[in-house]
């Protein structure tokens, strides 16, 4: 058992932190967000140079072969500085989905371009009525001649506005909640007939709602095999959920530390806020929540990495273990979500009137945390998913 990061990982984290602190200090955030996409275009090339964009991909696709632990390091640092970027959308969602579901030639074509910073992608999966259920897809893709006819709508497609490719999850067969019959299509956002409504999100980023009305797309737009997208999507969303937990964890630590500093400097009634026990104990709660949440992030990250190794070596059925991994993901997404929300709310309260001001980071952390909770399943959703697996194993235990 070992909780020490490798020398390489420590250097990687240092380089990320140095870069982010120098390039995106909080004082410049409002200015940075004035860019139409919420971030300056030169950011992307820098991230490619720092090795972020090739991080999780296999070496045969010019990737760095990084682990879930490595992605966690990036996400924690992103969380600390509230970085707005299409990193998650491009690399951890779309890129990983191509790596999981794409054909060999699609992977050879697209992944190296992602790693080099030449492509930005967005993943369109959620729909107005889907809640957090990935199988609830009513957008349909009906076979027609040498292509498909797409009808339906997607919502909250993060970073679609700046994407070169949008990957759409559509139903090629089955009923609206079936896990079977989902397929992936790559779309050019500039193609005719695509109705895109772009908007800014509360964290300073962008997202879009997209409508497809009798949109014809050629066969070659199909990513991977027809009708088999669900398990890949599920796996990638699980991985991305853990990444979001890591981001939230980074934000939580930042809130805890900044609140500590405020407690030591802000004076009322002739003494530091930190001398009031009512506040001391609440900051201790915040600190404990940071520690406990971080532990569950580690737990989920290690489970993902272990499963990766297992999947590559085992030839038997791994569904059972996959379910256990998903359970750890849900444990993290539930607890981190709950704790991050409370830490964010406490952080605001600790800062009094200043806590409500836009020139302080606290409220911005809270907005980002809140958005993370409403992405890939909120705490209630994940508690339910965890519970269902738990109950199944209670039933099967003798």
């Amino acid at each position, binding site marked *: 058992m070992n909780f020490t990061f490798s020398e390489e990982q420590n250097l990687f984290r240092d380089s990320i932190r140095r870069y982010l602190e120098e390039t995106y200090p909080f004082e410049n955030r409002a200015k940075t967000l004035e860019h139409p996409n919420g971030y300056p275009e030169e950011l992307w090339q820098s991230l490619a140079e720092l090795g972020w964009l090739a991080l999780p991909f296999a070496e045969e696709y010019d990737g760095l072969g990084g682990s879930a632990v490595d992605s966690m390091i990036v996400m924690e640092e992103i969380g600390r500085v509230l970085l707005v970027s299409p990193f998650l959308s491009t690399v951890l969602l779309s890129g990983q989905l191509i790596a999981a579901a794409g054909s060999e030639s699609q992977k050879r074509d697209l992944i190296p371009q992602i790693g080099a910073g030449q492509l930005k992608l967005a993943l369109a999966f959620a729909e107005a009525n889907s809640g957090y259920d990935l199988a609830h897809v009513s957008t349909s893709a009906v076979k027609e001649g040498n292509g498909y006819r797409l009808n339906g709508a997607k919502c909250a497609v993060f970073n679609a506005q700046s994407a070169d490719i949008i990957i759409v999850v559509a139903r090629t067969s089955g009923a609206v909640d079936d896990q079977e019959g989902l397929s992936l299509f790559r779309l050019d956002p500039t193609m005719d007939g695509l109705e895109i409504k772009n908007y800014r999100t509360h964290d300073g980023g962008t997202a879009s709602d997209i409508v497809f009305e009798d949109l014809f797309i050629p066969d070659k737009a199909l990513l991977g095999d027809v009708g088999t997208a669900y398990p890949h999507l599920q796996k990638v969303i699980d991985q991305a959920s853990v990444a979001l937990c890591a981001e939230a964890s980074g934000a939580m630590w930042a809130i805890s530390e900044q609140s500590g500093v405020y407690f030591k400097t802000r004076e009322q009634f002739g003494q530091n806020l*930190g001398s009031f026990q009512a506040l001391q104990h609440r900051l201790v709660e915040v600190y404990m929540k940071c520690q406990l949440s971080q532990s569950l992030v580690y737990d989920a990250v290690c489970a993902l990495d272990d499963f990766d190794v297992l999947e590559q070596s085992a030839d038997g059925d791994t569904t059972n273990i996959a379910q256990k991994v998903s359970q750890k993901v849900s*444990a993290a997404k539930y607890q981190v979500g709950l704790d991050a929300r409370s830490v964010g709310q406490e952080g605001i309260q600790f800062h009094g009137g200043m806590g409500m001001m836009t020139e302080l980071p606290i409220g911005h952390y809270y907005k980002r945390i809140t958005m993370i909770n409403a992405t890939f399943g909120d705490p209630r959703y994940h508690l339910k998913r965890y519970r269902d697996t738990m109950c199944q194993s209670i039933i099967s235990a003798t």
Partner: protein
Amino acid sequence: MDMKFDAQAEGFRAEVRSFVESNLPDDIRAKVSEEEMILPRDMMQRWHHELFKQGWGCPSWPVEHGGAGWSDEEHYLFEREIALADAPRPIPYGVVMLAPCLMEYGSKAQQEKFLPGILTGDQLWCQGFSEPNAGSDLASLKCRAERDGDHYVINGSKTWTSDAHVADWMFGLFRTDSSGRKQQGITFLMIDMKSEGVTISPLENFEGTHEVNQVFFDNVRVSVDNRVGAENEGWGVAKYLLGLERFGTAEVGRSLASLGRLKTLAKTVKVGSGTLLNDSDFMNEVARAEIALRALEVTEQRFLFGPGGSESMGAEASMLKVRGTEIQQDILELAHQALGYHAHAMIDVASPENDHNPAAIAKAHYNFRKTSIYAGSNEIQKTIIAKAVLGL
């Protein structure tokens, strides 16, 4: 980063598991599985004796005193496995608390006199720190020890003394000087419970358990040979003692065992045409507790096996006590809720379909309110974290 134990550690775990499996007497296992923390003297000693024969009686001690020479991982796995198997906790006062103080501050003669009896488990101890007017503010204690030649004469009382009624000896803190700061003038003494002038008066918890006592001292004479450390410097010894416990304060193993019982209970308690397992609100609560426990478990592992190892663990350990006891209480409370009407009876009313013992669960659930009070109340632990970790 790697959250798995290596093959060697797993081998050790298996060894402990099979040892407990074949050596833990059934009556003791049954008592512990009813969440009984306080065991009769005979049970404590029988189990300790099994461990002693195996060389595991006082595993955390240095090897030259009879310790096992284990690594941090082995200590951790040992505590975990005995907890999961419903074996008793290590005897706290002699083995875990006093002995290390004697090794650090005691004379050679004291070590030779007391350590062997603690090692074999023949001699049981109790801890006389708290007084009616000195609990959280321990340093304000008043029970007096006046010097009279080569003896101290003790007058006053100690209270909430666990196990005073089964112990052979007490170690405690006594006021030898009240002229300076309250932390000065405290002396650490060891007292034979059979000394003339010692009266043990039992106290009853609200749920009916007798585990603590008030101990009165009426001109009790204690030889200076039984003083640990210098006169008026007992506070340093006490601080050393209170900082000792690194393994097990979170009681994760115990809570995992309790949670396992809670799940079995959910499966067996009938509600309408199904069981509690079909009650998704209740099962949400169980899931919530399980996730909280896992977070605590990994946090403890991070503190023990992170950079710097267990040696570098400081006041962070206080959070293990706070969350650990909250989770213990939470799990037992859920077990109590699972029982519904069955939680009222003070005796086990036979129930053919259900093999659980509602009276014991209900009683334990009341008894465990103590865990957030003793060993430094959770409020005091939070204040420690605020000062030592957060620098407030």
